[in-house]
């Protein structure tokens, strides 16, 4: 059937099955990939377009309904002269696009509003954008961008030497607001074959494959475990426990079993009944208790007691110290599996080029991907090229392999490009999760409120495979006493295998779970002694000069006390406001809470170097070769700002080459909040290295001023100007390497696990409907010690986005295999759930960091849930011991408390 319609004002035609989704037709047939697909089910709004002027989800419209109608997509937003529309400009200037995967949908939804109302209120913006989810920004800057659209934003172009600290727009931002950025699913060649992965419907099962010949005759290939040269991968070199394709045993629901390779239509058309798999279901192990029961079956045959690993920190004498405490607090806190819910599902494609394999996929870690693929395929590392596409959100979930090994194996075998794009349910079932934790804590202090001792045991459900479980179990004991000076410490972390989904890396590596416990303890001790909760924390805050429980002396940059001081006026005012509100009777009760955190930047006691290069080519092109993947957090921009000032040329003159393992050097993975600190320092060193070479060529002093025009580099030193003609001198290359200094931890957890730590405190004001058990977060004020804000807009974006995820962790997010495998049942905060956020940036300089900067990627999330839960406690007297604090859980606790009284 032929359908004629109008597309961005021009006549268009579609010939194909009328039941085809508009989103698919736009992307696959008409080549307009600016419209994104995050779920194909109406839940995420990434596909939002205007249909006859009204916003709809393009994934829910049939092409058969399009005859004579008019559709507008992000590609139609640019002005006639090709410049950005004011809405796009406003998004860019406000930093409203981070990863950018939600941006086209946001822009189109906003467009519907702005046509009718050029000066909308916040509430109107929320109502109209309520159907588009963003996982990165916390929505704050999106609301600002839409409300501020009438005030044409000025582009900020800092001169040489003033890039660091400037709120410049993302260097990769224009592509994000025009829909021209290319994500994992956006650049698949039209002749690519397609993979459909067949996954285990059972959490624990044995299976046997029958005769695959009939299937193989209908498809290009059917891959099984037997087709994988080395069928194991995993984060740690000695733990390659996760098969690419399960070999007779499935250990979690969603585990890959078969890969069907063929045309997209062919693989989708295979009915499940034609798959020759005979399942024998086994009783699954769910939860830590089941895994640790005596005689429990082993999830991994070589891991007795289902124990992945354990370890801890011991410092001082906790038993004796507890005996001397004037006040003690204890409690046990439980958290759930949490899904990353990046709006871009895993996607990519691969091709074989001679004896090399090239992979174009969404990832947080191209170099680890390269090494892992080489290992799985038994190829030389040099034979693997990873070209990261734009990454539509990662948060730790795109550190593990996903589509890469299957597309690589199939493309290698068939000699044709092969693509794989996860569906939303597939992404949720197959990918890693935040570790469910059970944290038991006991803290004690003296009569003045000085902490004397703590004892914390954090047990984690690491799911079916190790993934980042060891990282979580190692990191948590170092952080579990909280950002406080505690002279006597015993902390313990342990992780157990279960038949849950593999728990991996998720923004904070277990620290957010532990923070829920230590912050509840701080509240309890303060309340016992009648000390203000914020002042109690201030009195115990780690400060420069203190020694941590691992025996590390914090020489510099420990700004928690400053954060709390900055919050103090907000805290006092919030307490007063809440008290005034609560004087009125009624079912709505308000409360205020405070949460603190610290976070070690980079790997725990492990080398994690970054290498960066800055090149000046003979044609005058100035290039930053940046292997640090920007997953939306803004590292492309940060690295450029840092390198620009180190070199002494304007940031605007840089061209970026990012990620590609053939073209850049290894800058490690985008995780552990390390890119600004580690790769940023490497970028700074690279810029300085190039500057040194230039100054030497020009025989100029250290204060010389550079400028670049065409192929001529002018070096002004005092009164003299010397010109360097790059065409004749040849290319120049600066390089920088940085590996943060750490030492291994001994058996008692003593050593220097991190070179520096970020500190933060947040306060939350909430309103609880005590009759319904619902919690509305009214306001959050966040104070973060970031060392130096290289780009304050991007730093705020990280904090706001982290807060939204922390709010979800506290109040709504719980992944239950088989039950919340879509964005309909798995709830993440919408634009109406995230309150107004005020960010306060504290800059307690870290001498090791570039311009004094530390990281902020994960810290935004860590204190939020503790602050919210503290506020709920303040409002109701209920201390949540299990998150998410769903309405029914809170209501039941309120009722139980009433009975107990």
């Amino acid at each position, binding site marked *: 059937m032929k359908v004629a319609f109008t597309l961005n004002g021009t006549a268009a035609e579609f010939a194909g099955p*009328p039941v085809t989704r508009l989103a698919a037709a736009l992307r696959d047939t008409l080549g307009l990939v600016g419209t994104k697909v995050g779920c194909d089910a109406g839940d995420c709004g990434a596909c939002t377009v205007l249909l006859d002027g009204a916003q709809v*989800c393009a994934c829910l419209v049939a092409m058969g309904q399009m005859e004579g109608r008019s559709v507008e997509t992000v590609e139609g937003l640019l002005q006639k002269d090709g410049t950005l529309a004011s809405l796009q400009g406003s998004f860019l200037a406000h930093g409203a696009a981070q990863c950018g995967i939600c941006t086209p949908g946001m822009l189109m939804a906003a467009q519907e509003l702005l046509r009718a109302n050029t000066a909308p209120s916040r509430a109107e913006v929320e109502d109209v954008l309520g159907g588009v989810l963003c996982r990165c920004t916390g929505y704050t800057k999106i609301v600002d961008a839409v409300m501020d659209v009438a005030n044409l934003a000025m582009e900020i172009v800092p001169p040489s030497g003033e890039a660091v600290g400037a709120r410049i727009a993302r260097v990769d931002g224009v592509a994000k607001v025009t829909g021209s950025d290319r994500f994992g699913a956006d650049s698949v060649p039209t002749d690519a074959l397609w993979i459909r992965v067949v996954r285990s419907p059972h959490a624990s099962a044995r299976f046997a494959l029958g005769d695959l010949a009939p299937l193989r005759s209908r498809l290009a290939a059917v891959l099984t475990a037997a087709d994988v040269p080395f069928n194991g991968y995993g984060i740690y070199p000695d733990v390659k426990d996760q098969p690419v394709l399960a070999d007779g045993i499935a250990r979690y629901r969603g585990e890959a079993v078969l890969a069907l390779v063929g045309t997209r239509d062919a693989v989708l058309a295979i009915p499940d009944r034609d798959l020759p798999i005979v399942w024998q279901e086994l009783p699954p192990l769910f939860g830590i208790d089941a895994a640790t029961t005596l005689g429990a079956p082993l999830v991994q045959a070589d891991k007795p007691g289902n124990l992945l690993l354990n370890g801890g920190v011991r410092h001082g004498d906790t038993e004796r110290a507890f005996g001397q405490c004037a006040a003690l607090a204890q409690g046990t806190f439980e958290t759930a599996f949490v899904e990353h819910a990046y709006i871009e599902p895993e996607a990519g494609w691969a091709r074989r080029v001679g004896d090399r394999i090239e992979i174009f996929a969404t990832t947080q870690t191209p170099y680890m991907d390269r090494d892992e693929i080489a290992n799985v395929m038994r190829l030389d590392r040099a034979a693997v090229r990873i070209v990261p596409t734009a990454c539509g959100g990662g948060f730790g979930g795109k550190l593990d392999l996903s589509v890469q090994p299957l597309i690589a194996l199939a493309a290698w075998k068939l000699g044709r490009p092969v693509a794989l794009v996860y569906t939303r349910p597939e992404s949720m079932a197959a990918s890693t999760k935040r570790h469910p934790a059970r944290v038991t804590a006991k803290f004690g202090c003296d009569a003045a409120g000085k902490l004397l001792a703590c004892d914390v045991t954090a047990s984690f459900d690491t799911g079916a495979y190790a993934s980042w479980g060891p990282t979580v179990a190692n990191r948590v004991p170092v952080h579990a006493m909280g950002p406080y000076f505690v002279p006597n410490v015993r902390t313990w972390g342990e992780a157990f295998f279960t038949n849950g989904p593999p728990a991996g890396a998720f923004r904070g590596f277990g620290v957010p779970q532990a923070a829920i416990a230590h912050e509840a303890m701080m509240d309890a001790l303060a309340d016992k002694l009648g000390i203000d909760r914020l002042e109690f924390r201030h009195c115990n805050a780690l400060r420069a000069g203190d020694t941590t429980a691992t025996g590390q002396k914090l020489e510099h940059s420990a700004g928690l006390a400053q954060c709390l001081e900055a919050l103090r006026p907000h805290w006092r005012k919030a307490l007063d406001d809440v008290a005034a509100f609560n004087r009125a009777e009624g079912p709505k009760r308000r409360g205020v809470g405070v949460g603190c955190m610290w976070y070690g930047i980079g790997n725990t006691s492990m080398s994690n170097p970054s290498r960066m290069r800055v090149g000046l080519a003979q044609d005058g092109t100035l290039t930053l070769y940046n292997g640090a993947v920007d997953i939306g957090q803004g590292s492309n921009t940060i690295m450029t700002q840092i390198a620009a000032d180190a070199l002494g040329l304007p940031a605007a003159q840089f061209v970026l080459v990012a990620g590609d393992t053939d073209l850049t050097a290894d800058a490690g993975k985008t995780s552990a909040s390390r890119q600004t600190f580690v790769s940023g320092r490497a970028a700074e060193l690279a810029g300085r290295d190039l500057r040194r070479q230039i100054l030497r060529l020009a025989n100029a002093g250290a204060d010389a001023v550079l400028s670049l025009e065409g192929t001529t580099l002018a070096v002004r030193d005092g009164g003299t100007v010397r010109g360097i003609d790059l065409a004749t001198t040849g290319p120049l290359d600066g390089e920088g390497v940085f590996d943060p200094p750490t030492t291994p931890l001994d058996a008692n957890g003593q050593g220097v696990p991190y070179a520096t730590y970020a500190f933060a405190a947040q306060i939350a004001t909430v309103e609880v409907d005590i009759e*319904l058990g619902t919690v509305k977060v009214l306001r959050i004020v966040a104070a973060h010690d970031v060392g130096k804000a290289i780009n304050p807009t991007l730093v705020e974006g990280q904090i706001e986005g982290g807060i939204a995820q922390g709010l979800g962790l506290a109040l709504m997010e719980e992944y239950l295999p088989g039950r919340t495998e879509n964005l309909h049942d798995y709830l993440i905060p919408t634009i109406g759930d995230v309150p107004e956020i005020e960010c306060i940036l504290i800059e307690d300089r870290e001498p090791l960091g570039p311009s004094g900067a530390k990281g902020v990627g994960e810290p935004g999330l860590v204190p939020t849930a503790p602050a919210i839960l503290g506020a709920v406690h303040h409002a109701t007297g209920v201390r949540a011991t299990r998150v998410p604090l769903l309405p029914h859980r809170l209501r039941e606790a309120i009722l139980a408390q009433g009975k107990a009284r």
Partner: protein
Amino acid sequence: MADYLRPAYLEDALRSLARPRTVLAGGTDFYPARVGRAIEDDILDIGGIAGLRGIDPTPQGWRLGATATWSELIAADLPPLFDGLKQAAREVGGRQIQNAGTLAGNLCNASPAADGVPPLLALDSEIELASLRGTRRVPLATFIVGNRRTLLAPDELLVAIHIPKPAHEARSAFLKLGARRYLVISIAMVAATLEIEEGRIAGARVAVGACSAVAQRMPALEAALAGTRLDETLASRIEPHHLATLAPIDDIRGSAAYRCDVVLTLLRRLLSGFVP
């Protein structure tokens, strides 16, 4: 290969139902049920049938055509009787869903958590079904027979929702409880229409959703309210035993006990809202 019909006339649509077809209206339930697989349904797209559109007054009340969307309802010029239904419409999904999804589709999909059902029950709606065999009208309360089951025969289409004009001045209201602000399936929702005559409740129709396989009217409560004065004591007339017919379940969104508990609160708040 599956076929796709988009007829311009109801006659042709009904004729095409001689063999089984999936009806497609706004697609907001249809497509989410078909993620990541080939769509093989033979489809009857009813969007091209002019006779199924619109929201219009009739001599007896109002007629909502089968393809009327949530957004069209919100924009329609309707008396306060419809306020509750409009409140429900504003709470459905996000704007995109309201712009595409139809009320009729919401009823035919027959989810226990369908937000359209309680307000339409409280409006005493009747459902008009048509097939080549003729048309019939059934009360909404009998149209939905179970979780995702209706009286629709395979050859039948829902063509309109009819809402009778109440005997007295009437107002309605709706409350939804969900775990987040937008795009959320109801944990529970309540709707009521009160007919008011000289400060007294001449008639009450109250319905509760997501607390049983099919949303229900609350006859015991309605009886307790009928004839009483519309004053501040209204909410206090609700007794737990009025809700004895509810049979909520435990699910990911809430426990059964919680639903029983909050429905009382929601109803009290809903009724309090009617008090001038």
